[in-house]
């Protein structure tokens, strides 16, 4: 990735969901659950993001069963690196926020 860019909330939760293989609907459900119902990925947004993240090589589509039309995706090594870097970036944001607001 272009290093230093922030991920969108949608990309972040998609990557996080795909640490284990999941299909589209599974990503939507997990994201909603993890964020306590705050983040709802809409289907069109998710579809576009999955294509974009695949094109970046951060996730891959798993070979699907013949009887199942559901496509499963999983994080790649590259995606895992991006995700870890993003967690670090978010930690910095949160730490600074807490520190400065804590002094007030």
């Amino acid at each position, binding site marked *: 990735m272009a290093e230093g860019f922030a991920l*969108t*909330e*949608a990309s972040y939760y998609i990557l996080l969901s795909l640490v284990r293989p999941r299909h*589209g609907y599974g990503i939507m459900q997990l994201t909603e659950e993890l964020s306590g119902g705050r983040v709802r990925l*809409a*289907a*069109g*947004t998710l579809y*576009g993001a999955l294509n974009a993240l695949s094109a970046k090589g951060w996730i891959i589509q798993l070979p699907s069963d013949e009887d199942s039309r559901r496509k499963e995706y999983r994080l790649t090594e590259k995606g895992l690196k991006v995700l870890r870097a993003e967690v670090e970036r978010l930690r910095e944001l949160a730490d600074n926020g807490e520190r400065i607001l804590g002094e007030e």
Partner: protein
Amino acid sequence: MESRKTIKKWFWIWDFEKEEDWLNEMAMNGWVLESVGFCTYHFVRCEPGEYSVRLEMHPYDEAYLSFMKETGAEYIGRMVMWIYFRKKTADGAFDLFSDIDSRISHLDKIGKWLSAVGGANLLIGVVNTYNPSRLGWINLLCATLLMYALGRIHGKKEALKRERLLHE
């Protein structure tokens, strides 16, 4: 009581959100979209508020339709480049776009289509102006209208971009 009805209605392309609002209003009043034609909407009776309806510009894409089905949305039909979906409100909130970026790329898609069709009309219009048939003005009129639509879509996009400077 009748169980089906057809309404003829015209929406400008930049009013696609109004079209969607109207379809949801119909669903709130117990009429859900069943199929679409050119400026023609076929409705069937439903429980008031039983469905939410969404529409978007999307080129034909089998993979997208099966993806939507997987998320519980039902494909109603397509009209030119526009596709229509519905989902039961009991099955949860139904939106196609949940962030500014994807709304912008949707407007981009509409913009590209308008540029392509508008450009083609402009070209045909200019060529036909020098033809004995003298029908070039029809294409030039279409091109003007399409370019106007492109301007409206561009305006919407710019508004979203300003918003994105502050948040997603």
